[in-house]
């Protein structure tokens, strides 16, 4: 008995590592190695000797932090970051506000058509960002858009949605449209997990549904709100698909509209993979800093509230 137990425990010991082998190999090849390579690239540059002809004329040499200082003084990158910050200040609050609102509405009593509306609001999740941007792009085009048709019939001024300030709203709208449903489902699911007894006492005390929502429901789903916020920040800072898709429709979206587009242009348009790598590392770092900073602040607040 003792010997079989030992033999089995030996087999058991090796098993988890065997099960984890595929994931580990894939992680090493497609996550760890590329990240390491990106950091290596960001610290190097190409030195061209002579006319740059023949093999050995182009050598990779150590560049130190040169690529980083170049990136941080690159006005296109900085402007792109500011544009995306402005865009994020619209997208994240509106999207999560709507998601929370819809989730609370779905969770309330005597709502008609709830299954249908829940499905309809979740539907954009299934639509690729590129196709979403394309659909809205056409809806923004005066020639084919129903909005312009209505404005025209009413004799109202017709703003250019693909330029200047309205462009931010136009782009934000695409992200809000695509992301609200998913976040709504996440919040709604955690609302459903709250046991009904929690409300009963409040109801008996005559609390209104608005009070129940504000005082009981929202605090109880705070963890899922924090999580949706966290992932929304990460996704927003990396916006790429929507502005890239709108680009053919308007001249106002430059090839460097968002930081990610700037990285893509530098790497593939201008062939400067070293500078692009430094930019990518900076963006990744800033993203992690912002999102984790938010997470820490949220945690601290929750702890404070728990202490009170």
């Amino acid at each position, binding site marked *: 008995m003792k010997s079989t137990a030992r033999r089995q425990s030996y087999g058991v*010991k090796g*098993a*988890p590592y065997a*099960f*984890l082998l595929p*994931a*580990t190999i894939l*992680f090493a*090849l497609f*996550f760890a190695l590329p*990240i390491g*390579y*990106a950091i290596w690239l960001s610290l190097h540059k190409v030195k061209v000797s002579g006319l740059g002809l023949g093999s050995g004329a182009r050598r990779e040499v150590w560049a130190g932090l040169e690529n980083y200082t170049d990136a941080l003084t690159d006005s296109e990158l900085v402007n792109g970051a500011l544009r995306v910050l402005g865009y994020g200040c619209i997208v994240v609050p509106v999207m999560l506000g709507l998601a929370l*609102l*819809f989730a*609370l*509405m779905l969770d*309330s*009593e*005597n*709502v*008609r*058509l709830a299954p249908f*509306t*829940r*499905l*309809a*609001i979740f*539907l954009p*999740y299934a639509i*690729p*960002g*590129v196709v*979403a941007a*394309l*659909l809205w792009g*056409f*809806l923004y085009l005066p020639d*084919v858009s*129903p909005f312009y*048709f209505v404005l025209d019939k009413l004799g109202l001024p017709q703003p250019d949605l693909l330029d200047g300030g309205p462009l931010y709203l136009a782009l934000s709208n695409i992200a809000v*449209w695509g992301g609200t449903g998913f976040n709504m489902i*996440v919040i709604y*699911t955690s609302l459903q997990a709250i046991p009904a007894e929690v409300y009963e006492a409040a109801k008996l005390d005559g609390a*209104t*549904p*608005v009070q129940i*929502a504000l005082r009981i429901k929202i605090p109880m789903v705070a963890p899922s709100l924090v*999580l949706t916020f966290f992932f929304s920040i*990460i996704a927003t*800072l*990396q916006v790429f*698909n929507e502005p*890239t898709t709108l680009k*053919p429709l308007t001249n106002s979206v430059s090839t460097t509209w968002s930081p990610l587009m700037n*990285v893509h242009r530098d790497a593939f348009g201008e062939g400067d993979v070293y500078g692009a790598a430094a930019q*990518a*590392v900076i963006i*990744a770092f800033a*993203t992690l800093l912002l999102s984790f900073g938010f997470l820490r602040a949220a945690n601290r607040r929750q702890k404070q509230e728990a202490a009170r």
Partner: protein
Amino acid sequence: MSSLAVPQTEPVAGSTPGTAQGRPPLRRRIALIPTVTLFLGAIYCLLPVAWVVIAATKSGRELFSTFTFLPGTGFAGNFRDLSAYRDGVYWEWMGNSALHAGLGALLSACVSAFSGYALAIYRFRGRETIFNVLLAGVLMPPVILAIPQYLLLAKADLTDSFLSVLLPQILSPYGVYLARIYAAAAVPADVVEAGRMDGASEWRIFTRIALPMMIPGMVTVFLFQFVAIWNNFLLPYIMLSDDEKFPITLGLFTLLEQGANTPALYTLVITGAFLAVLPLVALFLVIQRFWSLDLLSGAVKS
């Protein structure tokens, strides 16, 4: 937010004059504000979809001359034109997307199931470290990955190939995470222990006992990853240059790039977008019945 079953505290703010006031209350009253709000939200979300369905039926001339939400007569023609465009390259794009997403999601679900099972069932040195490292992958912005991935795959002479899009998308940190939670909840430890007592190998216990219990969770991982791969744009955009290998997202984008300056191509782009949305919406309608939302909430809670 004024949903209320208790009639006497119905907040006045929400009810428009004349609704239900003074009438004998219905057996189940309708909460007006929530219903209307949700309905407006639904209209907002369905609007672009409704638009593309109708616009796809319009011939090029009708698109610019008739009211937007008036159906046209040109769908058959648009469909023929799109299928004929560059010898049917559109349907190659659809096929590529189906292959990328189907195979990628299947492999992803398998890798997630292995990892999730190992992380949930076994106690071993380095368990939490491995889990945390794998999970950190979800936070890595795709951009910091995509460029070096391209350069590294170029060294392996794999760029512009099916594998260059498939391989980087197999490991899904989120999938591993869901699989771990699901395995922990669905596979009881004593069942695994009973298998060992009967002398079954660890592999046999996994395939014969644990995996069947984990199937609903793995279906969820498969669907999440299917949608993620089908919707991915950045990776194929960077990896592929031969347009016969494009997935549908990239194909539509190039079609739009060419079509933006030639309104004659608008109908092709619109019909293409409509047909590209169809399979995912159909899949979505079928699966949302099976979609394990408890799993999602479990993921959020922990």
